[in-house]
């Protein structure tokens, strides 16, 4: 093992071709620093789950190099696995077993003695609000509880790298917020976290760095802050006090009427929103509230994916 590295995960020229010939990954490179909170974003079928599958050994890579805390998975997968905890997208536990048994067994597969396993199971079930359901068959848990059970299971061997594939899919807003707080807390304690998500607000709120993957290629790999700074324009929804008889016109600001009290406008980064407000006020219209039409990251994401698609078309 190379002790000098500070990477939790290093991926180099990773390629995956499935048996049916589908090329899921086309030689991607990725580096996730130790302690990072990293988002892997991409549309369905982009290669996110394949990448995660390779990291946790459920998918066999075709070519390329993957190292986890310096352990090359080709040379010592057993060593590498000690460092990785994985929360998959689909429920993959025995629905007839009790949560407490699922956790203690998982610890056993990592060679953790029963006494320590029982202590950890109690700790994580408590922290994730599942302790009162510890001894019921897991099939009776709600969807949100099942997701939290999978997070607890992934933490039983106290991995240094936690990989979560759509961890809050189908989870209500309140529960999602509490899961975010929990993940932020374990990240603060030193666990490196990689997550894929469809909720881009989640990536923007939680993650420091991001890679956007599309059609098996990394199209962007940077910090969230840097990515947001690339945003050239934003779409705002404006609510007016006065009813609109027709769509007002302001030079340089393409306004669209949504309904009798709502306007939509695209504002370039170089433009001033105050200028727009002043122009509307001069036409007898007062804006009482304003919000982003979409999440900022979402706009960027669509731009990048569309750009990638266009380049492919041209190529």
């Amino acid at each position, binding site marked *: 093992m190379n002790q000098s590295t500070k990477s939790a995960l290093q991926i180099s020229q990773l390629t995956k071709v499935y048996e049916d010939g589908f090329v899921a990954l086309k030689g991607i490179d990725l580096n996730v620093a130790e302690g990072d909170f990293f988002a892997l974003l991409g549309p369905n079928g982009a290669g996110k789950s394949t990448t995660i599958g390779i990291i946790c*050994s*459920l998918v066999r890579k075709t070519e390329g190099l993957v190292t986890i805390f310096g352990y090359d998975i080709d040379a010592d997968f057993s060593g590498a*696995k000690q460092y990785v905890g994985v929360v998959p997208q689909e*429920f993959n*536990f025995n629905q007839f077993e009790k949560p407490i048994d699922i956790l203690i*067994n*998982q610890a*056993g597969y990592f060679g953790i003695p029963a006494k320590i396993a029982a202590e950890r199971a109690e700790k994580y079930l408590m922290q994730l609000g599942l302790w009162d359901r510890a001894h019921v068959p897991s099939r009776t848990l709600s969807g949100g509880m099942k997701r939290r059970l999978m997070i607890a299971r992934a933490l039983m061997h106290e991995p240094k790298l936690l990989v979560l594939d759509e961890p809050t899919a189908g989870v209500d807003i309140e529960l999602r917020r509490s899961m975010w707080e929990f993940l932020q807390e374990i990240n603060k304690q030193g666990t490196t976290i990689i997550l894929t998500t469809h909720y881009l607000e989640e990536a923007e709120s939680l993650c420091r760095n991001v890679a956007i993957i599309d059609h098996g290629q990394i199209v962007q790999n940077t910090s969230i802050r840097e990515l947001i700074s690339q945003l050239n324009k934003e779409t705002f929804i404006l609510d007016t006090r006065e009813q609109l008889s027709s769509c007002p016109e302001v030079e340089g600001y393409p306004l669209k009427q949504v309904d009798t009290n709502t306007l939509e406008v695209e504002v370039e980064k170089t433009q001033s929103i105050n200028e727009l407000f002043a122009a509307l006020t001069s036409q007898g219209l007062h804006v009482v509230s304003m919000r982003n039409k979409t999440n900022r990251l979402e706009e960027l994401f669509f731009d990048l994916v569309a750009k990638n698609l266009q380049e492919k078309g041209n190529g």
Partner: protein
Amino acid sequence: MDNHQKWIAFTTIVRREIHRFMRIWPQTLVPPVITIVLYFVIFGRLIGGRIGEMSGLPYIQFVAPGLIMMSVITNSYSNVVSSFYGSKFQRNIEELLVSPTPNWIILLGYVVGGMSRGLGVGALVTILSLYFADFSLHSLPITIGIVLMTSLMFSLAGLINAVFANSFDDISIIPTFVLTPLIYLGGVFYSIELLGEFWGSVSLINPILYMVNAFRYGMVGITDINIAWSFGMVGLFSALLFFVALNLLEKGSRLRS
């Protein structure tokens, strides 16, 4: 993983497997016991008395070792095939695949789990058989040795079946169309002397014949075939199946994409 950690992983799998079949005991333990009791009643008491002797033994004494072996074979096989395929179906096999547990430990864990059920049911049936027939154990080492090896062999076969299975239908095809005919034609109910020279020779390609005869020899001291051959055949098949099963797990066939 060091050896202590491997031992913990192994005992975890075995404990979980035993817990699984004990939790669903009305499905796993009761039916085979009822089936075998019915065999004893019908072939031992009702029909057996009219058949008379087989190879110099009262028919019930002749048939009892084969019935015990039948329960060991079917339960060892069905425990592993249903548990491993169930883990594939619910995808909780991934819990093991993402862990550092070596494949040979996974294999041994499932196999010992299957053997626990096979031998457990075998013990229950043996106790019940004492009610129907009198035994004086001829050779304990041969009896224990052959029953352990048979249980091992069919647990391994069950795992291979589960790896290849794509549906619940696939895990019942082999027991129904291969295992049951081999058991019924494996000398459980008759001596191959009754078959004549040609069909007697054909029967020798059935591996279950060797197991049933060795077990019968261990219990009552009679056999149609050489005991050393029996151990050799079962040992050879077990070794072969072990390497096939391990190879499938190492390759991740139908487990990893």
